[in-house]
């Protein structure tokens, strides 16, 4: 089974390159609301949805912390464990701000992830197609789009 999958096709190549360079174990690209655009390494939908929700919540918490401190938003968060590290960072694209959640093991490092995250953000910014006009969301479309997204992420 392919380990890297994308709902938005333009995210796939930059993400695969990032995975190749860093050796990250898990990666999610998502919106600040937790909507997943692409994933690497996850095998179950429930894990992706949980990780996306938690990642988006952590980022939202740091935004509120920055407001409390009357400072600019934090750009990245690193949480180093014994066997794994977590890197969570936001970046700008023509479609608005996106988030990357990266879990890496001892075969990678915080420095490598930080270094190649800069490249990933620049490549996604360049690959991002122009913004489409928003269409009204219908209940039937929502369910179909949700099913298509899950299918794209897990090959179901």
């Amino acid at each position, binding site marked *: 089974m392919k380990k890297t999958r994308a709902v938005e096709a333009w995210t796939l190549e930059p993400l695969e390159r990032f995975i190749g360079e860093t050796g990250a174990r898990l990666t999610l690209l998502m919106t600040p609301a937790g909507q997943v655009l692409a994933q690497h390494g996850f095998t179950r939908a429930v894990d992706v949805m949980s990780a996306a929700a938690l990642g988006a919540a952590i980022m939202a918490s740091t935004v509120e912390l920055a407001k409390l401190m009357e400072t600019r938003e934090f750009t990245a968060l690193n949480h*180093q464990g014994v066997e794994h590290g977590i890197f969570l960072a936001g970046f700008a694209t023509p479609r608005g701000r996106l988030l990357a959640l990266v879990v890496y093991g001892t075969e*990678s*490092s*915080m*420095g*490598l992830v*930080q*270094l190649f995250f800069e490249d990933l953000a620049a490549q996604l910014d360049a690959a991002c197609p122009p913004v489409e006009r928003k269409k009204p969301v219908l209940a039937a479309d929502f369910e179909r789009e949700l099913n298509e997204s899950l299918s794209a992420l897990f090959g179901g």
Partner: protein
Amino acid sequence: MTEQYRQVLDRVTRVRGVRGAMLVAGEDGLVVAESLMEGVRGNAVAALAASLVKRFRQAAEAAGAGMPDFLHLQGEGGTLLSVPAADGVLVVAVGDADLNVGLVRLEMLRAAEVLE
């Protein structure tokens, strides 16, 4: 940068042909202290050098050679050198291709000793 770190790095960068020297956290690949010429991407060198050292160490251990005490990577356009110091810190130097490797190695080993 603390005075001790600055002095340690100065000893290495004083050698002709050295473009920069850094103290790098070996496990994280992050810069602890640096003294670099303009144009040298410290964070990139630190991350990639630490990754390289980690893989060389694994290869050396698998081959039964133990912990490598000096890494010398020679390229057409330059040289990368690394020496392990205390607490997982690496002394890393980048320089010209025709660098006096012996002299830089000596200064890097002395720098590593000071950090013990």
